[in-house]
């Protein structure tokens, strides 16, 4: 785990190399991002997750569609907006985590093409469409990818143009197409007052 003091003090160019569990607020059973592999803060992100047996419990051994959407949202709007807000507020990821909570605002559309079972590694590949007033909208896709592929190396020379065109290996299997995935960072103090 990344040292908290390091996260508190260090500024980063992107989320690649940062452990999602160190910056996202979800507990272990609800955290659906394992690694960030590519990230250009104003353009988009690519992150991976591999569902566990616990993730598919009571659901026919299949990773639920809503969990795919959640995984995409965590990888895209939550992670990317968090990063950009740190830059804007000139604060650390830890400071930001202490001030805001991510809220799911809306979903434009989702089309599922394939399914995922435990051990199936997938990537969320997201393009940022809008970011203002701590609200972000992202479009993108989920692909099942080979388990043994070094994704960070694979995406090392990836470009935004390749992302927009989904220029990927034919061995990657399209699982879902998502659009209008929207979330906003809410001040914790506002939520506390409402509760």
């Amino acid at each position, binding site marked *: 785990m990344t040292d908290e003091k390091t996260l508190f003090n260090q500024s980063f160019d992107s989320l690649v190399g940062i452990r999602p569990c160190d910056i996202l607020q979800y507990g272990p059973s609800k955290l659906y991002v394992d690694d960030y592999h590519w990230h250009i803060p104003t353009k988009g992100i690519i992150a991976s997750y591999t569902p566990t047996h616990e993730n598919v419990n009571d659901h026919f051994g299949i990773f639920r569609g809503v969990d795919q959407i959640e995984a995409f949202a965590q990888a895209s709007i939550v992670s990317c907006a968090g990063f950009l807000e740190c830059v804007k507020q000139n604060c650390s990821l830890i400071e930001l985590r202490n001030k805001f909570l991510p809220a799911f*605002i809306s979903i434009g559309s989702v089309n599922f093409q394939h399914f995922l079972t435990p051990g199936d590694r997938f990537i969320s590949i997201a393009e940022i469409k809008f970011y203002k*007033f701590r609200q972000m909208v992202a479009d993108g896709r989920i692909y099942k990818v080979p388990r043994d592929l070094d994704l960070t190396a694979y995406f090392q020379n990836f470009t935004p143009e390749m992302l927009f065109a989904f220029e990927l290996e034919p061995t990657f299997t399209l699982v879902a197409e998502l659009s209008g995935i929207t979330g906003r960072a809410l*001040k914790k103090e506002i939520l506390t007052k409402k509760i």
Partner: protein
Amino acid sequence: MTREEVMTGLVEILRTVRTIEPAKLDTITEETDFITDLNTPSTEMINIAAKAEQKFNVEFEDEDIDGLGSKVRDIVDLIMKK
């Protein structure tokens, strides 16, 4: 810029929002509530604010939007204040 001019410009913005019924904009006043009267989703409120920035050449802070009420008068006040 007068409040009337802001209202006119705001209605022009609202006519581009597909989730708002155009007919409801014929009777809009400053007392109209975006949520209860126009059924505007919260996600659209952010888009409306962003479009208002461009149209009226103003800049809102995140805190302005955090504290924004749901009535038309609230956003008119905000634009006038800027």
